[in-house]
């Protein structure tokens, strides 16, 4: 397992390091903590000892904090960093407890599977719950994701690529590790994970649709993808509790592969977003547009990333989602009743997620790169230097590689899985047997060829016939202006409306328009419900309570002496 993940990480780090050239203006500090973060993560994954694990974990978390607050002279960046810091520290404390319980359970700090005999009842549950909370915060599973969107939005782009690509995966990694220790996971855990996965998947993408900040939107998509991964993991857990090797393989294989894929295409997307911001100096989707003309390469990269993240063939996103689909259907085809309950609501949810993601990325791609520019910045944007395009190119290549030849990585996945569920090591089917990976390859190739062919055909026809250039046919309106375009707000309006019950969107548009409306607008924004409705009020209340407690120290020495006396009496009467 560590072997597998290290290879994965090493891969990503390689990319990560090239990206450093991207933001020259962020000085030494950035580079330094970039290095420390990677070092921390490396330590984390090779750690066989919980203390070491915690070291790596915290080094990673802290350097991530410093990376997020690179531009700490801006207020909102500071607030973001602060929220992130609190979240990650709470996670760390959960891990304290977790490893303490582990130590109590198997008597040593070395991370190893627990043997069922010595395991006391309740300890396993405690471990699972603590791990779920502790790692879930880091991974950004839905109710615990509060820190994630703004942190990703505020950090420099290649840092957000790193965070969303690798850092939150550390949460998944930890979850996988810990669940692999537990001897006999009850079926409910798997179902719980599945449910959480569905929740964060659907809600994540739903929130994403409502966003206008390019990077914030991508951040919410990270939550969505984490949801998909967790679904796979939950499926694998169910499989383990019911001794179904194929579910384990498909679920876990899908999850791990999706970890990998998400790292690739999310890094790709964040980098392209970074170069967009670099070029147009704004993250507001509604103020961009028409960039495909001025920065064609970047737009191509972003397109590939978008197709991949929507899980569309022939790119890598499809492969992992395909595996998870197969697994979920597999539970149905010949599985028991309970696990079926999991599958039946997970399948349409996954379909919904896919479709929503598609809608969302059509919106983003269309609004950012297509059409005509909506602001001066966007109009005067410029293509970014090759030092920024290079890494993207590599990522694009990787996406295609995995998408077209998933067989190549099947053995590595297999290795990881047999590390997770030892009983798979010898017996049990291989991944390649369960999933028609070779078919995916051939279909992908076929698809590409056919598209190429069609393109050629169209080209020839066009070459034959007359081709004129003209303005867009505005259905009778002549001289379309950029402001007439469909903005992302309007694009998402219908969908946001559908999810209004959870998103609580704040829409601004003038009510009761007169008969010839002089000038109207529609704009909606979606705040983070969990953060604004649940977490912050709690903190405010706590602060108020504590400030009230201050009354007790009001500087009067006689009272202080009285405290001593009272304490004395109380303790004397203790027993």
């Amino acid at each position, binding site marked *: 397992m560590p072997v597998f993940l290290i290879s994965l990480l090493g891969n990503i780090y390689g990319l990560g390091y090239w990206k450093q050239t991207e933001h020259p203006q962020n000085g030494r500090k950035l580079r330094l903590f970039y290095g420390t973060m990677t070092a921390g993560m490396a330590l984390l994954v090779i750690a066989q000892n919980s203390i070491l694990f915690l070291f790596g974990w915290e080094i990673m978390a802290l350097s991530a904090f410093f990376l997020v607050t690179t531009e700490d002279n801006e207020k909102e960046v500071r607030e973001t960093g602060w929220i992130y810091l609190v979240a990650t520290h709470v996670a760390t404390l959960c891990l304290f407890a977790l490893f303490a319980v582990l130590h109590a359970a198997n008597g040593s700090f070395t991370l190893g599977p627990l043997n069922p005999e010595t395991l006391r009842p309740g300890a396993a549950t405690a471990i699972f719950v603590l791990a779920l909370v502790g790692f879930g915060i880091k991974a950004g599973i839905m109710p615990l994701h509060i820190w994630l969107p703004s942190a990703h939005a505020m950090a420099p782009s290649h840092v957000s690529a790193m965070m969303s690509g690798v850092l939150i995966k550390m949460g998944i990694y930890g979850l996988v590790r810990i669940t692999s220790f537990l001897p006999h996971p009850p079926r409910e855990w798997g179902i719980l994970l599945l449910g959480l996965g569905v929740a964060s998947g659907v809600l994540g993408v739903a929130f994403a649709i409502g966003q206008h900040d390019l990077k914030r939107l991508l951040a919410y998509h990270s939550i969505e993808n984490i949801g998909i991964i967790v679904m796979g993991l939950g499926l694998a857990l169910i499989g383990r509790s019911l001794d179904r090797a194929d579910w384990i393989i498909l679920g876990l294989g899908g999850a791990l592969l999706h970890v990998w894929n998400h790292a690739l295409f999310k890094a790709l997307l964040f980098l392209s977003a970074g170069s967009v911001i670099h070029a147009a100096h704004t993250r507001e989707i509604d103020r961009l547009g028409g960039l495909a003309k001025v920065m064609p390469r970047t737009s191509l990269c972003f397109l590939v990333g978008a197709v991949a993240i929507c899980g569309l063939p022939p790119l890598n996103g499809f492969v992992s989602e395909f595996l998870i689909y197969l697994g979920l259907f597999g539970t149905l085809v010949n599985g028991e009743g309970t696990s079926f309950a999991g599958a039946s609501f997970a399948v349409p949810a996954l379909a919904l997620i896919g479709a929503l993601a598609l809608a969302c990325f059509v919106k983003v791609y269309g609004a950012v790169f297509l059409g005509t520019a909506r602001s001066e910045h966007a109009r005067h944007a410029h293509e970014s230097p090759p030092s920024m395009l290079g890494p993207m190119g590599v990522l694009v290549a990787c996406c295609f590689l995995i998408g077209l030849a998933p067989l190549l990585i099947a053995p590595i996945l297999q290795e990881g899985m047999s590390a997770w569920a030892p009983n798979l090591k010898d017996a049990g089917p291989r991944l390649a047997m369960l999933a028609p990976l070779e078919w995916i390859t051939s279909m992908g190739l076929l698809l590409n060829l056919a598209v190429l062919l069609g393109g050629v055909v169209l080209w020839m026809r066009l070459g034959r016939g007359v081709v004129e250039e003209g303005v867009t046919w505005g259905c009778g309106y002549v001289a379309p202006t950029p402001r007439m375009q469909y903005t992302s707000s309007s694009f998402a309006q219908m969908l946001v409306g559908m999810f209004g019950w959870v998103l609580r969107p704040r829409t601004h548009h003038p009510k009761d328009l007169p008969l010839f409306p002089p000038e109207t607008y529609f704009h909606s924004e979606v705040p983070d419900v969990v953060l604004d409705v649940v977490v912050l009020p709690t903190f405010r209340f706590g602060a108020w309570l504590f400030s009230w407690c*201050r009354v007790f*120290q*009001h*500087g009067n020495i006689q009272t202080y002496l009285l405290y001593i*006396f009272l304490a004395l009496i109380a303790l004397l009467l203790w027993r």
Partner: protein
Amino acid sequence: MVPLLDPLLIVALTLNFVALGVSRIRGVINAVALQGVLLGILALFVHPAIGTRVILLVAVTVGLKGFVIPRYLVHALREANIQEEVKPGVGSFMGSLLLGAVGTGLAMVFSDTLPLAEQHKHLLLVPASLATVWTGFLMLTTRKRAIMQVLGYLLLENGIFMFGLLLLEATPFLVEVGILLDLFTGVFVMAIIIHHISREFASTSTEHLTELKG
């Protein structure tokens, strides 16, 4: 000597009430000083074997508690030209007297329940010390004047000292003297601080000392 011991203790106790009830600082100082002297003398009676170190100890005690400290306090009083007349911060003289009485009574009852060693069962020493400690606390917590708090601290120490009389053997001479010395220096430093306080605020009431809070 026991018959002589108890009356002395009674006097010491009454001195507590005097300290609580008297309104002039000088009076309180005298009361405390007198109590110190009594304590010194008490030491002679508690201990059958009057060795040289007991004598010495008595001398030092009486010297410090009875004369040096009071003199010094009076001097500080004059230095800081504190007007006489103290009012209790909380309640009235009557109230604090009542509290003191209640406390003393409680001390009596409480010390009866204490598992004392045989030879101390019938001694008034333990209850007296408890009562004095209580009085000291009462003074510390109810009086506003810094100097009155010092006196309260002295009372407290007296009470503890009374208890210490029971086991002079346990505490070697050196330690006893060390304790007394500490007590003296403590009062000394406190007096200096009081001096500064009165310079700063033109009064020694601790009401001014409530800046630092939260």
